[in-house]
């Protein structure tokens, strides 16, 4: 292929070199890219960044527990048609008017290449990914109601995010390029924070990073704070006018980082134990 897409992250999204590499491989091999990782590591944002960097339109399909594979391709609005036929409004003869394409369907039909995000695929029923296998393989589908076949002119870049709530079927996984977004190390985190809080002074960021990684290391804490929570926390610290020095002794606005009552308690108990030494 002559026009090879090159993804290098965007101004607002820091992608690690291996992630850049893997996005490029997936684009090039035209395979779906399956992204997993802790909540808050930027799985969903990745698709936006890829679309922005490659200058392609983004179509998002938020999967819910009730989603069916066909919804992503098209929906036949039978109730509307029935209603129209009863009350004599609209052109009931034209079945096409009642066929509504889903995000995948739209991306196949579009004349230009697009990025499709299938967000949180594991939310849906266990059979969901299997039902999509064929469509993702050949990038075309048939609408029996109209006798139409929609084939992708330009195969879209498909990015799939999963929270590992359900295991995905093997046959599906085999077709995907897989990447696990590991939790960023301090260095990378610093770069991410720079993007979100360009004005914040270095000292506050360093100090809060130390405290943040310390917090993540506490074994009592079940729901570990993630990147997005850290970004919010630093925002809160700035607005609250907290000095870097204060962070050494206490953790203000802890509610931004810890979302579970039991974690708060565990931390308080742990601190009491430590203060004895």
């Amino acid at each position: 292929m002559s026009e090879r897409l090159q993804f290098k992250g965007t101004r607002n999204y820091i992608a690690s070199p291996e992630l850049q590499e893997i996005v490029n491989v997936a684009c090039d091999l035209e395979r779906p890219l399956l992204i997993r990782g802790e909540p808050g590591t930027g799985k969903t944002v990745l698709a936006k960044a890829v679309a922005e960097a490659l200058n392609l339109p983004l179509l998002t399909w938020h999967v819910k527990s009730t989603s069916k594979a066909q919804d992503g391709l098209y929906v036949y609005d039978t109730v509307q048609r029935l209603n129209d036929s009863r009350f004599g409004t609209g052109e009931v003869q034209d079945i096409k008017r009642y066929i509504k394409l889903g995000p995948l369907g739209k991306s196949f039909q579009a004349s230009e290449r697009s990025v499709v995000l299938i967000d949180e695929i594991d939310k849906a029923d266990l059979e969901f990914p299997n039902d999509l296998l064929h469509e993702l393989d050949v990038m075309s589908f048939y609408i029996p109601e109209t006798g139409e076949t929609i084939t992708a002119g330009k195969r879209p870049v498909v990015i799939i995010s999963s929270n590992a709530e359900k295991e995905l079927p093997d046959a599906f996984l085999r077709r995907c390029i897989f990447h696990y977004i590991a939790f960023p190390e301090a260095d990378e985190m610093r770069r991410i924070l720079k993007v979100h809080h360009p004005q914040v002074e270095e000292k506050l960021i360093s100090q809060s990073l130390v405290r943040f990684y310390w917090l993540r290391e506490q074994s009592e804490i079940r729901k570990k704070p993630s990147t997005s929570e850290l970004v919010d926390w630093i925002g809160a610290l700035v607005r609250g006018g907290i000095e870097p020095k204060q962070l050494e002794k206490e953790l203000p606005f802890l509610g931004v980082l810890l979302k579970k009552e039991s974690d708060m308690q565990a931390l308080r108990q742990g601190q009491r134990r430590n203060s004895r030494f």
Partner: protein
Amino acid sequence: MFVDFMYQLRSYGLKVSSNEWQTLLQALERGHAAESLNRFYYLARAICCRTELDYDAFDRCFAEFFEGITYSESLKDEFNEWLKNAKPPRALTAEEKAAMQALGLDELKDMFEQRMREQKERHDGGNRWVGTGGTSPFGSGGYNPAGIRVGEGGGMSALQVASQRLFRNFRSDVIIDTRQIGLALRKLRHWGREGHAAELDLEASIEATGRNAGDITLMFRPERKNNQKLLLLMDVGGSMTYHTQICEQLFSAAYKSVHFKEFRYYYFHNCPYDFMFTDMEQQKRVLTRDLLQTLDSTWLLIFVGDAAMAPYELTEVGGAIDYFQQNAETGLTWIDRLRKHFPCSVWLNPEPAAYWQRPSNQLIRTVIPDMFPMSLQGIDEAIAALKRMKQKRE
């Protein structure tokens, strides 16, 4: 050589097939990762791993596979050969050749050797650090101060990454969290339509309306509900004390789980007999016969126990370890009765499978052959077995 690598991955339990191999070759043909071991590592990992649980096995395999080369006497020859035979010659585009030459073979070899040496040091250290409770080897402040920067593109070398085994915690045979057991249990969910018809059945309505010459006819059906029922029988006391933590995790996962219509649990000591207990202190009794009466065969049964006891506790009348049991029938009879009553039943054993050659364990397995270790993987397998048993009955 890649074929060997694939077979080695398979021996590490990664389910790679010719499909992945071809994808990998295709990617290499298209010039991905051709000039860098680093990029090859990430590329192969993305293609060969299906979940982050595979990452650790991949890392170990990668480290071993490429480490072995360093230690052989003919390092240079082998490495040369690898570079030459990495892919079919026809796959080399002019672009790739240029890229390889640009790096310089000697330079690359030296880098490789040096990296290997340093990697060995870090390998030991890394293992030790990771070993202590799975904390990050880097602590809160630092970022791998000894990390080697590779000329093109930066970052750690693939072998270093591989040998650090950062993804060790994802290994499926290590228990991590209640939530993960919860997720495993979730697979037991069984949806069925039962009870009051409260949901509009659109398709049936359309069908009926069509048959009714267009006059709208509404059809209803019962809602889809999870109707799985789980009975958990847990061995407590004695040798099970060592396994308290993991048993608690399983219990709390099942208890908190919303995936069961009903969940009941009882305790026994070593083996269930005429009665079991509703509390861990073994004070409040419940007759096993009553349980068999009230719970029907659709219940799933999970035994949890180390199956470690004197054989006579299973084979003799009155053989129970606690004098108050005074069992009139042997323990094995009771287990067999439970198994026959609940055809969908498995045994989870918190002891590693290596200890399973005890006579008492083997006796129990004559009645319940489906015994699984209580690791995440074992629980997964147990649940898959339960599902199979259930499906067979439907």
